């Protein structure tokens, strides 16, 4: 997905907050955003996927993005949301819930304006990050590479 032709025109992204930082992922894979629902813990599950939720009668794994980014887990707040995305894992269409501390908005970003990730000076593992953009104002916005994240989630 992170290919050459994507760069030429603006893409829709969903911006979200994780532990106070602003991140973004492609809006195309998002199917809905839910308020926090009861989570069933899966004993002995990996840290990045601690539980299961019920999304319209389907059993969906809940993935905690903060684990991939090496961030501490916060307690759930009134702003906590679940971003439901559809992807393909190992050839199987899969629905996944992503835990977010906050969801801001769906906006457009010019992929050209995304700077490649600097190798040094980054707090987050670069393999999960596609680049760094700017929010309308000027805050940094870290664009996540969801393909890389899901690939390592299996």
């Amino acid at each position: 997905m992170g290919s050459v032709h994507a760069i030429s025109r603006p893409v829709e992204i969903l911006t979200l907050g994780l532990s106070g930082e602003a991140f973004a992922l492609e809006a195309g894979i998002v199917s809905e955003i839910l308020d926090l629902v009861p989570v069933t813990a899966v004993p002995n599950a990996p840290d990045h996927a601690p539980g299961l939720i019920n999304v319209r009668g389907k059993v969906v794994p809940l993935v905690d993005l903060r684990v991939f980014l090496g961030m501490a887990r916060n307690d759930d707040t009134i702003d906590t949301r679940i971003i439901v995305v559809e992807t393909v894992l190992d050839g199987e269409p899969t629905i996944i819930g992503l835990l977010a501390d906050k969801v801001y908005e769906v906006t457009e970003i010019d992929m050209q304006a995304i700077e490649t990730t600097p190798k040094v000076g980054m707090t987050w593992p670069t393999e999960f990050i596609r680049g760094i953009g700017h929010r309308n104002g000027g805050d940094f916005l870290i664009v996540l590479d969801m393909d890389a994240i899901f690939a390592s989630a299996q």
Partner: protein
Amino acid sequence: MAISNDPVETFRIEARELFEQLETTLLDIEADPANKDLIDTAFRALHTIKGSGAMFGFDAASAFTHHVENAFDLVRKGQLPVTKELVEVALLAKDHMRILIDDPEAAPPGRSEAILSQLAAVTGVGPVAVVRSGGGERPEPPSSRSTYRIHFRLVRNALSMGANPLLLLKEMREMGDFTVVTITDALPHLEEMDPCGCYLAWDCVLSTDHPRSAIDEVFMFVIDDMELTIEEIQPDPKLLGEILVEHHAIGPDKVEQAVDRQPRLGALLVEEGLVSHDKVVAALAEQKHLKGEAEKSKKSETADIRVQAERLDDLMDQVGELVIAQARLRQLANAGNDTHLKSLVEEIERLSSELRDTTMGIRMVPIGSLFSRFRRLVRDLSKELGKDVQLTTSGEETELDKTVIERLHDPLVHLIRNSLDHGVGSPAEREGSGKPRQGTVHLSATHSGAQVLIRIKDDGRGIDPVKVRAKAEETGLIQPGADLTATEIFQLILQPGFSTAAKVTSVSGRGVGMDVVKRSIDALRGTIDINSVLGEGSEITLRLPLTLAIIDGLLVRVGEGRYVIPLSAVEECVELTPEDDLRATGRDFLNIRDEVVPFLRLKSLFHLTTPPEPYQKVVIVAAGDMRVGLVVDQIIGDYQTVIKSLSKIHSAVQTFSGATILGDGTVALILDIPRLIDLSHASDSQKKAS
């Protein structure tokens, strides 16, 4: 009925069934060469494959099949005896036809010619070119001239399925004097009409020297679902009324009534001039109506309908959702005091459980279709191995979920191969040990509660527990001198990398196989029992659930989490006495009626930190002959539940076979009993060894 929009794909599916039927028939012929019905069945299957193959553009397959069909025509006429060689080459030919139709590109070049020359050697007739094609070609003794009345109507989608009514009419026209009337009564209004649909029917009268069977053959390729009547009539001139009566268009009394009304009709005729024609058309329409009614009642006895498997899966999913919603409804109703609501909920509960049973019933298929596929396997394999083995089967009518049956094929192939390769000895060896030269592999299926037992039993050498133990010690699967029962030793052959075959054959003995079998059976939530008496034979029993989609479960609570234990695995529930609880430090064993049963504390297995509760329970579960107790905090009750598989993200978590949604909408995990038992025994033997 069409199940796919692609007629070629539909044809392939039908051809596959024909091939299966053909193979079974050929194997039957081998066993019973004098049976003329079987030969006719084989011939008809070949004829249909040839004809419909050509219709859908599989010319190579059609031309090839033609030669095999010719050979069976000779057999049919008694000009060629049935020999083992003929059946052999016919089976090869059948395999080749299947390739030609499934994937013509994949057919090895020269294979057709090779098989045909083999066939020619058997029949003594050189390969002859395809001279004629289509039906009505077989020379039969000329019969005297007779007249037939033929009425036919193709199915609505016949044209898109590749049928051409003009060709059918042309074929009949070539057979003699032919009169045809097109019936257009079923033509809908233009706006309702499907331009590709076939709305026409034809009434024909044919006077011919050909026998009746020649007319049947014209319709051979389109006969499914079509309306077709062929009857011989006396070629006497008849009154219109008589013909209409014979057409069953109108009862004699109706004709009389019409005759009674004739003055009025005559008046109309005078007025309009065209009424008589319409009247005939209407009479024909009435005929069809009456006939349709009669046929409907006739068909309802044996009507089958072909449904796409995905539709059944969808239906099952929806029923599953319904069961979940109904459980929620029950919970809501029980929380209040509304008796009307409660009685309604009970009614819905009854309906949904009936609906569930019916839906599962639709998915049930007799296992015989699977068993029959192994006859060929055993036949070919025993030949290859120089052994004489017969396959006997029983319980073919036992029904199992279609998905389970499909996924049983590969494991059963492995098990049967093993029996033939390792189990049954060569005829000489068998004679030496006082057994009949011919070995027997018996495949059976029986119901046992909510499970189906499938047994593969042979009268071969049996499994040598000493050899198995030696091998397991050598490969480090067990500690030398470990204390194991015979059953536990036999279970070792299911471990990855285990194979006792001294030499690697093409059939088995690569050390892959039994562990693959175990994994496939695990995936079906089944278990494998192995029994064997050295020198007398072995018996492998597969225990499988009836269906994959819904289970009856026991809902339990551990800490704050709720879990489902498949009820079929539950043997009993006992209380964990404080003495047992305290005593069991390091050695977690219970004494159940003088039997020692190990138990697992789910709380510590799940790394839960909640403090132990005062009245813990132990649920004793079994898989095969192994039993283990699971310590839980509370037993909530039985619970019918729909299984949802876990995603790849949780594939590393091994203690759960799936999840389900509870009445309150939360998710509960389903415990994987065979895995838990393996786990407990693994930690067990570790403890023993240390």
